[in-house]
């Protein structure tokens, strides 16, 4: 199941097979540059270590602690267990530069052993988590908490603008310390965070073509920039796939006939904080070229993600490309506005 992130105290699985947006950071003195996924679905910063020797570390840039005069060795180790292997690493501290802003004494993880070869295909080197500290495996502040602790930002807010177009201008933007009103239309609809680990909020209901309301009594969702699709509990998602006429592939994805796009339900509604958020078929169907053939995939995916508040939905890039998202740590709330 792609895009699965399952948190169970010390065990976590990370899967970035569907991550699409990344930006640049630098670590150390002199600076060593890395491309990272800015991920609201996790809270740690990690990059590959120069000591990583597995095949998975063959291509990405790797952090050379021995070349940084400001690096502080931490000594702690960390491990992330996968079903078929595990990622191992060590922790350290160093200067972090993000778009010209310096964060001092930033804890981060260097991975020294990575299973699998997925990252050979990745255009990014690591991940910078923007979730709450409760989600972090490192003792110490996550990056955004450190920015706040060091008074680097005017407001305890960050926001995402994600464009759907490749090679657009800009393709996306993360704004630290506020929002840019040129990137969205007012008003902003604010939703309280219901559990401070992921950016978790309450969905009032999901409505497909005006019928079959899903989670009619409300359900929990996380807003996750590291996930590309909209995911939900298997039963609900299979019903939605049926309603839009999507059929499963061997790879757990759901495909639709591109020629029938105009016959699909035109609108799917997510009701958040009493306000309807609409996705048209053009927005919830993902198109991909395979040679000279066009494939059309459903933007919905079944992922059974359990939390103490019940099954979690994930609002990923399919949703976030349509709606500008604002994450407010000061008032523990998430805001949406039309992008």
């Amino acid at each position: 199941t792609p895009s699965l992130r399952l948190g169970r105290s010390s065990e976590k699985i990370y899967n970035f097979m569907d991550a699409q947006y990344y930006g640049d950071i630098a670590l150390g003195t002199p600076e060593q540059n890395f491309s990272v996924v800015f991920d609201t679905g996790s809270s740690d910063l990690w990059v590959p270590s120069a000591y990583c020797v597995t095949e998975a570390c063959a291509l990405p840039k790797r952090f050379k602690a021995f070349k940084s005069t400001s690096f502080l060795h931490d000594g702690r180790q960390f491990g992330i267990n996968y079903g078929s292997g595990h990622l191992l690493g060590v922790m350290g501290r160093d200067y972090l530069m993000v778009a010209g802003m310096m964060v001092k004494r930033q804890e981060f993880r260097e991975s020294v052993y990575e299973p699998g070869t997925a990252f050979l295909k990745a255009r990014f080197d690591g991940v910078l988590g923007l979730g709450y500290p409760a989600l972090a495996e490192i003792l110490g502040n996550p990056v955004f908490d450190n920015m706040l602790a060091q008074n680097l930002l005017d407001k305890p807010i960050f926001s995402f603008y994600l464009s759907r177009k490749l090679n657009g201008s800009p393709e996306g933007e993360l704004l630290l310390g506020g929002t840019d009103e040129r990137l969205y239309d007012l008003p902003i609809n604010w939703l309280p965070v219901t559990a401070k680990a992921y950016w978790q909020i309450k969905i009032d209901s999901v409505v497909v073509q005006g019928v079959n309301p899903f989670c009619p009594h409300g359900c929990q969702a996380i807003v996750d920039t590291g996930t590309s699709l909209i995911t939900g509990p298997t039963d609900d998602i299979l019903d939605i796939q049926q309603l839009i006429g999507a059929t499963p592939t061997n790879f757990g994805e759901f495909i639709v006939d591109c020629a029938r796009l105009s016959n699909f339900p035109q609108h799917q509604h997510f009701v958040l904080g009493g306000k309807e958020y609409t996705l048209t078929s053009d927005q919830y169907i993902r198109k991909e070229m395979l040679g000279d053939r066009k494939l059309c995939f459903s933007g919905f995916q079944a992922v059974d993600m359990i939390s103490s508040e019940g099954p979690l939905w994930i609002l990923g890039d399919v949703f976030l490309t349509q709606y500008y998202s604002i994450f407010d740590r000061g008032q523990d709330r998430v805001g949406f506005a039309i992008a």
Partner: protein
Amino acid sequence: ALIRVPLRKVPTIRSQLRSEGLLQDFLVENRPDMFSRRYAQCFPAG
């Protein structure tokens, strides 16, 4: 004091593997869903 970090959009690893005809082999060899399948029954109902 607004810090702007430009983001680039790229095809996903899944898309790249698919376009190179490697997705099936990758999923068979790496089984990214193995963890959830193995432990799904450990969670309480609901």
